[in-house]
C-alpha cells in the first residue's frame, strides 16, 4: 500500500516537472518580451501617471455628455456603414464560394489549384481591411465604394478558408454514392455537398457580417466612407461631444446587428 502510494507520488512528480519547467520558461519569456517592448516603445509609468488625469479630464470635460441633438448628422453615415458591411458580405460570400470550392482537396483533384486557392485566401486574409481600404482609396477615390471592396476582399480571405475547411469535412460517402449512379459534377455539388455544407455556411457568413460592421465602422478613418469618416471629421474639428454621439451610434449599430444576426442564424439553422 505504502509503496504503491510512493510510486504514484514519484510518477506524479515526474509528470509535473516538465510542465513546471515549461511554465517557468514561458513566464521568463513573457517578462523578457515585456521589458524589450517597454524599452522599445519608450513606455513609462510616469507617462501613464501623467496620462491618467489627462484622459480623465478629457472624458469629463470634453466627451460627456454627448451632444444628442447632433444625432441626425450620424444617421446617413450609420446607414452607409450598414450598406458597406452588407454589400461587402454578399460580395465576399460570392467570391468565397468559388474560392472555397477550388480550395477543398476532396472536391478538386488538381493539387496545384487547391494550393492556389488556399494561397489567395491566406493572402487576402493576412492584409488588414484598413490596409485594403488605403489601397482602394488610392485606386478608386474617397467614399464608400473603396470601403465596400476593401471589406469584401478581407472577408473573402476568411470565408474562402472557412468554407474550404467545412467542405473538406463533409461525408464523402454521399458524394461517392451519387457519383456511382452517374450524377454529373454539378449534381453532386448541389445534391450531396450543399446540404451538408449549409449549416457551416450560414454560421460563418453571419459571423462575417458581424465582423464587417466593425470593419465598416473604421475604414472611414482612411477616407473610405461610413461612420469612421464622420467620427474623424468631428474629432479633427474638436467637436468631441459630437464624436461621443458617433461612438454611441457605432455601439448601437453593432449591438443591433449582432442581435439580428444571432436571431436569424438560429432561425435558419433550426429549419435546416
Amino acid at each position, binding site marked *: 500500500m505504502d509503496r504503491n502510494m510512493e510510486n504514484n507520488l514519484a510518477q506524479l512528480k515526474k509528470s509535473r516537472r516538465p510542465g513546471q519547467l515549461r511554465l517557468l520558461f514561458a513566464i521568463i519569456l513573457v517578462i523578457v518580451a515585456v521589458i524589450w517592448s517597454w524599452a522599445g*516603445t519608450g513606455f513609462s509609468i510616469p507617462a501613464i501617471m501623467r496620462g491618467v488625469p489627462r484622459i480623465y479630464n478629457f472624458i469629463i470635460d470634453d466627451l460627456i455628455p454627448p451632444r444628442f441633438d447632433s444625432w441626425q448628422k450620424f444617421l446617413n453615415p450609420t446607414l452607409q456603414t450598414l450598406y458597406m458591411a452588407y454589400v461587402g458580405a454578399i460580395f465576399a460570400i460570392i467570391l468565397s464560394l468559388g474560392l472555397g470550392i477550388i480550395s477543398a482537396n476532396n472536391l478538386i483533384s488538381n493539387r496545384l489549384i487547391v494550393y492556389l486557392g488556399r494561397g489567395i485566401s491566406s493572402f487576402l486574409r493576412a492584409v488588414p481591411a484598413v490596409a485594403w481600404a488605403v489601397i482602394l482609396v488610392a485606386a478608386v477615390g474617397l467614399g464608400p465604394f473603396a470601403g465596400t471592396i476593401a471589406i469584401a476582399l478581407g472577408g473573402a480571405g476568411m470565408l474562402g478558408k472557412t468554407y474550404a475547411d467545412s467542405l473538406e469535412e463533409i461525408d464523402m460517402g454521399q458524394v461517392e454514392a451519387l457519383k456511382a449512379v452517374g450524377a454529373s459534377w454539378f449534381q453532386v455539388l448541389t445534391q450531396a455537398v450543399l446540404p451538408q455544407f449549409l449549416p457551416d455556411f450560414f454560421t460563418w457568413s453571419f459571423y462575417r457580417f458581424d465582423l464587417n460592421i466593425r470593419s465598416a465602422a473604421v475604414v472611414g478613418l482612411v477616407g473610405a466612407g461610413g461612420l469612421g469618416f464622420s467620427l474623424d471629421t468631428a474629432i479633427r474639428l474638436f467637436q468631441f461631444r459630437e464624436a461621443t454621439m458617433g461612438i454611441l451610434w*457605432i455601439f448601437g449599430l453593432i449591438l443591433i446587428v449582432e442581435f439580428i444576426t444571432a436571431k436569424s442564424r438560429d432561425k435558419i439553422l433550426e429549419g435546416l
Partner: protein
Amino acid sequence: MKKVNNPLNEKEFKALISKRKDNLFYLIILIFMTFFLFFSLSQMNINPARVIRGFSTLSDLIKNMFPPDFGQLSRLWPLAIESIQIAILGTVLGIIFSITLSMFAAKNLTPIPGLGVILKGFFAFTRAVPALVWALLFITAVGLGTLPGILALGVNSIGMLGKVFSESFENINKATIEGLNSTGASRMQVFFQGVVPETIPIILSWSLFRFDINIRYSSILGVVGAGGIGWELVRASRMRDYPALLMVILVILVMVYAVEQFTGYARRVVR
C-alpha cells in the same frame, strides 16, 4: 359514412404544411435580401460601369506597385518591431486589467452584487468600440505616439478578455470555492489557489488568441498616428509611392505571419 382513405396522417400533414410555410418564409427572406442588396448599391452609387472602371484603375495601380521598393526595408523594419512591441504591451495590459476586473465581474466572486452587471456593460462597450476609434480618442487625450496605441489595444482587449474570463470564473466548480472558504482562506487566497489554477488553460489560450488579434490591429494603428508601421501605409499612398506601399504591405504580412507561427507553437505547448 364512408371512410376517406387519407394517405397522410394528421402529423405528417401538419409537417407538410409547416414545411411549405418555411419555404415561403425563406423565399420572402431571399427576396428581401436581394432587394436590400440593390437598394444598398444604389444608395452608395455603385453601378456596373463604376465597378469596371474601378477594376481597371486598381489593376493600373497594382502594376505600378511592382517591383516593391526593397530600399525601404531598413526604415520599415524598426517600425514593424515597434508594432509588435505595442501589441505585446497592449495585450499584457489588457490581460492584467481583465483578470483583476473579472474578479469583481464574476457573479460567484464579486463582493458587491450590482458591480458585476456594471462591469459587464463596461466590457460590452469597450469591446464594441473598435481599437482604431479608441486610438483616436487616446491620441486626443495624451498626444501622438506609441502610448495611445498601447492604451487602445489594452482597453479593446479588456472588452473581450474580461467577458471570457469572468464567464470562465463563473463556470468553475462550486466545491473548490466552498472548500477553500471553509478552511478560512481569504478572498485573495481563494482566487489564486482555487480559481486561477482551474481556469489557467482558458486564460492562456484566450490571451494568445487576443495577441494574434492585437498584432493585426497594431499593424494599422499608425494610420491615425498611434505608432508602429501603419502610418507608412498612409504616407506611401499620399505620396503616390506605390512600390513603397507594396513593401509596407509585405512587411506587415511577414510580421503577422511570423507572430501567428509563434502563437500557434505556443498554443501547442500550452496544450
